[in-house]
């Protein structure tokens, strides 16, 4: 294998706190050496030299919430488009939800997803490596919330946690049993926290805006109630509990309190919830039809505060590709979700540029913490670690345009938005999987 030499680049490694100009040697897919340029010296003879003025080298993003759509829904996202979109987003590892067809509720299905996405990716014309694909196992059979899935077998097949994907584990007894069982297996439960009966038929956040628009409201309390119940069960069972795409002030308060109490509790959010509020829905634009719905400005501020004070552990893309037809409908019947892989990094970089978080924290939130949380390879630049890397131009401005996405889904709530922070190249196991402008 070739040697790659990153020559005097700003290295940002959240796993060690290293934040300085350094040179990095990548050999045989791992980080062979890293340190001050004078210590590392010149590039080895046969090395490919990467020199990028003003660029930042960091561990590649580890995206803990992705709907892969494979197997089963290749018209919404194909293995190839998924891999290319992730590469363009600086993502070197992603964890897929089990809401595929077949559902990932048995070890064979899980193997199909992991193998299928890799297999197709190797057919790509450029023969490059692809982002690492992980998956959650379904918490209940068929995601139907009736019976516990084969969590033990799923864990052995590689499931990194369990979830009902875009639906909550709603039944309290089933949740209690699953938590007991997952604690035994030492795997986390990932919950879409929403009280289903309170949110029934809901179309957007319940507020003055939903009243004006005549859309059925989903109150913030639907999230709060589910988080409160789950925290009680986490206390009872000792299970590691993780709230996905947290979006409301009170739920964040509950997590903050639970952490203070010493519970093994974590949460993530996604860019729409710190960057947008429910006023965006005012023209019934289905790009803003998301689940959970865009919340109030007070909730958005609470998400920002939670990111700043560490209550929110990480930020995921919440990539939910939908085909065009599913969005070309009246708001209330349009599909929820948006294409997120290619906008995660620039939007989180926005928080750095606004002074909400440090550059180091950008990569904690999107790389080292999710990797640690789910015990995945990546999220670190320590010597000997897999060379899963991203090189970014932190200040470079560009404009988000859905039709320029590599993802098959072009629907983004950030259409037309100017952002700062561009991925220059993405590397998996020392191989370049994406190059800006290539």
């Amino acid at each position, binding site marked *: 294998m070739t040697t790659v030499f990153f020559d005097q680049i700003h290295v940002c490694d959240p796993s060690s706190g290293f934040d300085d100009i350094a040179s990095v040697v990548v050999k045989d897919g791992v980080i062979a050496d890293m340190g001050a340029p004078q210590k590392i010296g010149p590039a080895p003879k046969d090395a490919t030299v990467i020199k990028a003025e003003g660029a930042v080298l960091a561990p590649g993003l580890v995206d803990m919430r992705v709907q892969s759509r494979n197997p089963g829904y290749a018209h919404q996202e194909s293995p190839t488009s998924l891999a290319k979109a992730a590469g363009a987003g600086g993502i070197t590892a992603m964890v897929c939800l089990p809401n595929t067809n077949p559902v990932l509720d048995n070890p064979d299905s899980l193997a199909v997803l992991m193998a299928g996405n890799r297999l197709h990716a190797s057919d790509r014309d450029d023969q490059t490596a692809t982002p690492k694909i992980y998956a959650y196992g379904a918490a209940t059979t068929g995601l139907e919330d009736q019976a516990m899935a084969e969590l033990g077998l799923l864990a052995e097949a590689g499931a990194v946690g369990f979830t009902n994907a875009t639906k909550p584990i709603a039944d309290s007894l089933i949740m209690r049993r699953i938590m007991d069982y997952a604690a035994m297996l030492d795997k986390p439960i990932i919950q879409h926290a929403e009280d289903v009966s309170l949110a029934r038929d809901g179309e957007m956040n319940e507020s003055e805006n939903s009243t004006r*628009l*005549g*859309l059925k409201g989903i109150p913030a309390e639907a999230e709060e109630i589910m988080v409160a119940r789950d925290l009680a069960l986490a206390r009872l069972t000792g299970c590691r509990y993780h709230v996905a795409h947290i979006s409301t002030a009170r739920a964040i308060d509950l997590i903050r309190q639970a952490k203070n109490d010493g519970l093994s509790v974590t949460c993530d959010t996604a860019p729409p919830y710190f960057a947008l509020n429910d006023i965006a829905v005012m023209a019934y634009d289905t790009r803003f039809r998301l689940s959970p719905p865009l919340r109030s400005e007070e909730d958005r501020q609470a998400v920002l505060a939670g990111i700043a004070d560490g209550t929110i552990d990480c930020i995921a893309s919440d990539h939910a590709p939908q085909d065009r037809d599913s969005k070309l409908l009246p708001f209330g019947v349009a599909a929820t979700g948006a294409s997120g892989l290619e906008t995660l990094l620039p939007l989180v970089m926005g928080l750095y540029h606004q002074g909400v978080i440090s550059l180091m924290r950008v990569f904690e939130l999107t790389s080292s913490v999710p990797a640690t949380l789910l015990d995945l390879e990546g999220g670190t630049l320590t010597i000997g670690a897999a060379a899963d890397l991203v090189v970014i131009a932190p200040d470079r401005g560009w404009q988000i345009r859905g039709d320029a996405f590599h993802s098959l889904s072009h629907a983004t709530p950030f259409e037309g938005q100017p952002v700062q922070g561009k991925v220059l190249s993405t590397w998996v196991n020392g191989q370049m999987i994406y190059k800006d402008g290539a």
Partner: protein
Amino acid sequence: MSSDLVSKSGVATAPTVSAAEIKRRIENARDPQLFASLNGHHLLGIEGMKRPVIESLLERANQFADLPKGEVLTHLKGKTVFNLFFENSTRTRVSFDLAARKIGASVVNVPVSTSSIKKGESLLDTATTLNAMHPDILVIRHQNSGASLLLSRHVDASIVNAGDGRHEHPTQALLDALTIKRRLGDIAGLKIAICGDIANSRVARSNIHLLATLGAEIRLVSPATLLPRGIEDMGIATYHDMMEGIEGVDIVMLLRLQTERMQGTETPSQREFFHLFGLNKEKLAMAAPNALIMHPGPMNRGVEIDSALADDHERSLITMQVDMGVAVRMACLEAVAAQLDQNNKEGSSA
């Protein structure tokens, strides 16, 4: 273009001239500039509509209301109006149909079998197909809020919203306002209570925007389960006690219980609803003397209103509302058609 058919107070005086003369005056009063401030060439809702536009539409509708029976105008000669109703409707569809014919347009009532429409899935396909037949105006009713706005972005025709989900029903609010104006004169300063199922009502939303714009004092009377969140933030007084809510009001505007849009937990029974929120003589006595009753129909007798009260022509404006509907829709069709013409003219000269 002030018309001598309308007195300063906005109340129509009895026509003392010949039918032909009235028709001639209406013809001459035609002024496409009048509606230049209409929002685009569509009529999607009342929210955001400027007061002068509302007043122009009402003034024009007031003229049309005096058009003698049997007379047909030719303003929209050569124009085609498609009625596209995805929800069942009798009175609104017939009213639009009649209005279009009376103003000289051709009308096509597009049959939409609700059974073949799976939750709005084919809405844009249907609209695109119809658009290829070059209608000038598409009148649409749909079960989803925002459907008319969605359609307006994908067709060339003017869209007139005949009710979209729980969102708006602009022509209903306009016809309610015209009814009030013709009976009581100025709307500014009137106390109006809107009662019943506010949460699921597009009529309530359009009326709140319109009556507030024209300066009425609005109160909402509703069970807590049928009052949508945050409506107080729109600056409206709300009541759960009907006697208190309608005390001293000039108009009691009732709404139909939208049972088809309910989820089954809003009100325990129709009997209980009538007991607490149904209008009867006793409750009406709390309102101002000679207070008037309105209802957009179709009525649930014995649920929202006592049956005898509904038929009391001294107090009830319900049939007059239906009558005014045709005139208001004539004015709306004329306005959007004029705006569409103007847009096309500007488009071709640019």
